[in-house]
């Protein structure tokens, strides 16, 4: 960035935090780099994180929202008011629906965001359900723009997780486990340490797989990790646990424990 004189950084917020950390480790100050602003998205991030990135990189940080299926990043973007994002209504029609009934809700109410492409060719989406929950508002923003505003997504109406900017479904984890011969007694624990998401999968080992050498058990963990990486694109840390060590539950098993505080 320094060599090329880059003034704008586009990345996930956690990667920006990582760049800031590295900058500090290498002995630089925010003023030493030519960056002026950053556009960050693809994963949820808080106001606190925005302040931290602005301070540690010496930039103004803006929010961006998008979906691969619609157009990629740029469906909506934040402005200097930093309270919501403007939807590019000249290209996308936004609606809010009740995720259970599909009923279209008025602006101001919380519901699932739905987009329709107005000028996309070859693969336009018509009323595409994003599964992101948010609120749409019409009032004119203090920045002067009059495009419809969406708040930062408040959650999802499905069980998809976003880990290090990658979409991960619990069903994907489960299918890899079963394919590799493990039981479906597993737990996923997601947390955030030093601005990076940590992703741990705990699964019960088959009693027959127990070996007297650490090497064999570690190799099994590594093999499962590779299978996961091939399926979902990122590598969880695998922990093989003894049989019966994962909590059984009466009703729906608690498979996902997300300890990140993102809202």
């Amino acid at each position, binding site marked *: 960035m320094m060599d090329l004189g880059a003034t704008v950084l586009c990345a996930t917020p956690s990667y920006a935090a990582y760049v800031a950390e590295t900058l500090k480790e290498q002995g630089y100050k925010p003023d030493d780099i030519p960056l002026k602003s950053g556009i960050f998205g693809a994963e949820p991030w808080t106001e606190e994180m925005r302040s931290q990135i602005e301070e540690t990189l010496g930039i103004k940080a803006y929010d961006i929202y998008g979906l691969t299926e619609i157009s990629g990043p740029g469906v909506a973007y934040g402005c200097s008011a930093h309270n919501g994002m403007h939807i590019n209504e000249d290209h996308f029609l936004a609606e809010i629906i009740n995720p259970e009934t599909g009923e279209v809700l008025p602006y101001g109410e919380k519901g699932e965001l739905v987009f329709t492409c107005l000028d996309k060719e070859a693969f336009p989406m018509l009323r595409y359900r994003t599964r992101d929950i948010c609120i749409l508002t019409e009032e004119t923003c203090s920045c002067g723009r009059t495009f419809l505003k969406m708040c930062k997504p408040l959650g999802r109406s499905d069980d998809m997780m976003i880990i290090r900017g990658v979409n991960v479904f619990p069903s994907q984890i489960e299918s890899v486990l079963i394919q590799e011969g493990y039981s479906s007694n597993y737990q996923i624990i997601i947390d955030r340490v030093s601005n990076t998401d940590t992703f741990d999968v705990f699964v019960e080992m088959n009693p027959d797989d*127990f070996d*007297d050498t*650490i090497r064999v058990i570690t190799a099994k963990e590594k093999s499962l990790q590779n299978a996961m990486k091939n399926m979902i694109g990122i590598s969880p840390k695998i922990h093989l646990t*003894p049989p019966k060590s994962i909590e059984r539950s009466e009703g729906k098993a608690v498979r996902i424990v997300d300890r990140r505080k993102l809202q």
Partner: protein
Amino acid sequence: MAIKQLSIYAANTKGSLAQITKALADESIDLRSICVADTENFGILRLIVEDADRALQIVRDAGYTARVRKVVAVSIEDRPSALYEVLTILSDAEINLEYMYSIINSAKGHAFMVLRVDDNDLAESLLASHHITVLNEQTIFL
């Protein structure tokens, strides 16, 4: 002939090792050798006992994950360099040594060692051809 070793998965939780040794003590299992291989998340407890199969049943009934496997045991002179000589025999023959540990014995002047290799028969015949005393189930507990 190789001797039986009992290995038990030990969770990395408080009291884990204590509980396992209690399960064995309650059934009067006498431990002749014990060591723990530890990683960040778990440990493997390895034991030499007089009746490995009985001990296996005891720990399995108590809910532990365990298995019995045969390992090579040798008697070496209790002097500096004796162990080095045995290990050199194995490494010169490119026999991979996974781990090793010692066993309590009453034979003065001799030390008993467990050697975990992939091919027990090969290792034993090689060591015997170098005049190293290989132990079996009968001689190990003397």
